[in-house]
């Protein structure tokens, strides 16, 4: 099938590996012959602030930004960031969400309230039918390092079958961009993610 365009929004908190994840996917998309565009958050916005990276690929794309309401997938490395960017989603959009909350220090300093995971889940479920909460930090720890959370999430994306790129192409691309010493851990992280994604897809089909 010819993909005219595919839009993925990857959101999270500065330092969680959003830029690396987008770099991995953009190379994989190139390898499968697509035209590719991304837009990323660098500089001041990275200092623990919210980050959002756009990935678009297909046969008919020019610009780097995704119109609101048109994301195919919102891949959220932190749960509340999925809500912050919910308006990129339409009713069919797949929300693949790390079930971790990172509460900014200023919440305490200013006496503000922060939503809970269940509130977030409930809200997202009103936006889209396809919301998947993933214990990605736990899986990354299981793989051997919390910092492989981004690779776990890429595995889920593949396992759940929501990206038109072959598993092996993404795997090769991961190996290209991670430090050599961490190859085994990242391989495990990717596989754990795929497994998790497959069980979700299995439930969908029941």
């Amino acid at each position, binding site marked *: 099938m010819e993909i005219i365009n595919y839009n993925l929004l990857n959101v999270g*908190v*500065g330092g969680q590996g959003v830029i690396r994840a987008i*770099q991995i996917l*953009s*190379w994989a998309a*190139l390898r499968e012959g*697509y*035209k*590719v*565009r*991304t*837009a*990323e*958050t*660098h*500089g*001041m*916005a*990275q*200092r*623990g*602030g*919210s980050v959002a990276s756009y990935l678009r690929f297909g046969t*008919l*794309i*020019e*610009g*780097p*930004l*995704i*119109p*609101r*309401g*048109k994301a195919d997938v919102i891949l959220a490395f932190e749960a*509340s*960031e999925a*809500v*912050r960017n*919910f*308006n990129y989603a*339409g009713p069919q959009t797949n929300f693949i969400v790390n079930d971790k909350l990172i509460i*900014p*220090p*200023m*919440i*305490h*300093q*200013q006496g503000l*309230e*922060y*939503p809970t995971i269940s*509130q*977030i889940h409930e*809200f997202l479920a*009103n*936006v889209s039918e396809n919301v998947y909460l993933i214990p990605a930090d736990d899986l990354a720890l299981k793989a051997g390092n*919390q910092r492989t959370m981004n690779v776990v999430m890429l595995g889920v994306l593949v396992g759940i079958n929501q990206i038109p790129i072959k598993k092996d192409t993404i795997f090769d691309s991961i190996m*290209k*961009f991670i*430090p050599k010493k961490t190859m085994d851990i990242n391989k495990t992280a990717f596989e754990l993610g795929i497994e998790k994604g497959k069980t979700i897809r299995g439930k969908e089909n029941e």
Partner: protein
Amino acid sequence: MSNPKFVDDSPGERIILMGNEALARGILEAGVIIAAGYPGTPSSEIMATLAEMANFHPHLKLEWSINEKVGFEVAYGGSMSNVRSVACMKHVGVNVASDAFMTACYAGARGGMVLISADDPNCFSSQNEQDNRYFGLHALVPVFEPSTPQEAKDMIKYAFEFSEQFQTLVLFRTTTRLNHGRGDVVLGEITKINREYSFDWDRSRWVCLPSHSRVLRVRLLERLEDITEFADQFPFNKLTISKERIKGVRYGFVAAGVPHAHLIDTLNYFNLIDKVSILKLGLVYPPPKKLIKEFFKNVDEILVLEELEPFLENILKQIAYEEGLSKEVVIHGKDYFPQNGEFPAELYLDILARFIDLDFEKQTVPEDMIIIPPRLPILCPGCSHRATFYALKKVEKKMKTKFVNSSDIGCYTLAVYKPLEGLDTEICMGGSIGLANGISKVQPKENPVLAILGDSTFFHSGIPGLINAVYNQNDMLVIILDNRSTSMTGFQDNPGTGIKITKEPGTRVILEDLVKGCGVKSENIWVEDSNDIPLMIKKLEEAVNAKGVRVFISRHICSLLEVNELRKRQITPPIVKVDPEECIGCLICVNQFGCPAIMFDDKNKKAFIDQSTCRGCETCIEVCPSSAIYKESE
């Protein structure tokens, strides 16, 4: 972990490049020898990528210059010596370089000379969103603007050839989404240039004194005329005419840069790409007059898509007036599009639908919207700036006064937010000291005037302000936050580290010697470790109370670099914990110090340290009034 292929001479290969990497690749392909600049988001990765390339292409002569003006001059010196040269900076950096730029444009280029200005609509990481296309208009210099990473590479390669052909400087304008967006790029050949590189002793050209400049100005105007004539053949300008009408109207669109890419997406979305005429400009100044006249003849209603100022819109309106066509064609732009911020992709959908009167439903927000408080960027865990600002707050409190904290551009600007709220001004690089010179002239003695800036910012443009303070006896305390890095833009080295852009050793400039050389008396100079809070409080109080121009160097390496260094030396940082028995839940560590590694358990009313975030700097131990924070013994 970047892709090493971008250094290979492998024309035809298709790889993924970030816009800034694509620019670096184009610079390499053009046979450039000298590249200089000062770090600044969104431009920094151009020089960083060239530095990686220099490992494989040793002919590249690169430097991080002390500021953008010097960076421009370094490159221009190269051009004078018949070498292809480039200066890279962010938009506000061009303000600093403009003193040189506005006269260099008179003498023009010998070796191809390009100034890259990375503009930042939306102020993602900037103090303003100025539109630097006007610098081209101001200096009578052509302005190039690419739409995609591929075009960025191809266009900058061409810019050096163009510069030599017309002996003109080229202003190469990009915006954040081009610089920090990736795309597929087909590589070109790396040009080898065989020519003699040497200075040319043509004083009538390079010595811009009045008698020469009057002549040079005439040549500048002639050059611009030649370029205007050529603009119709400029290879990155493209006019696409459609003979179709939509509801009887012939529509035309004009765009350059990133908005052009989104225009194409939007027209594809509505299936209108073949039904409208499009003028795509790669040369945004001077305008291609014949193309524009041809465009005017074929359209009735025109929409100009450009972020920030109505630059192209005004040019088009002027040409329509000159051609007597101001009644025949209607030119729209800022009556549809905002003059601030970046255009999100859905804005194009919405505005084009309105412009052509199409059916398009705007998205509605669900009613049960939950509010997520903003997640602003903050000082990192273990950041030494936090310790300095915390200590300053303590001194201020002790002295029962309010300081005027004139501050500057860098990571430490983030201390403006709660809980530190440690700075009162930020305008431009080095502005802290300049402003303090003025503020101190009228400020009552009860409110000491402080100028607070980073090491790199001090080198960049703080030095003249300090000498000014000494000379004019404008009393102030200058605090230099010396974290041995230009951190915000990606940890670039600076004269204080003495390491060059290629990581080769240079000559280190000793900050305290420099300050002394500026005329600050030895007894008015302090150098302390930022993270030693009790000592910092004592010494800062001393410095605040001393007379004359004082300089306090608060020194501690950037915590991110410190962690890397420890990791390299395989040293495990200490584990710092909160003893729940001792913690009284006073929240001082959370609400006054505010290191993101310190969390608070609302159930037990106790602070605790998130070990995955903590860097083990131990600074917070001194912050706790009940000594509940401790270093775990091995």
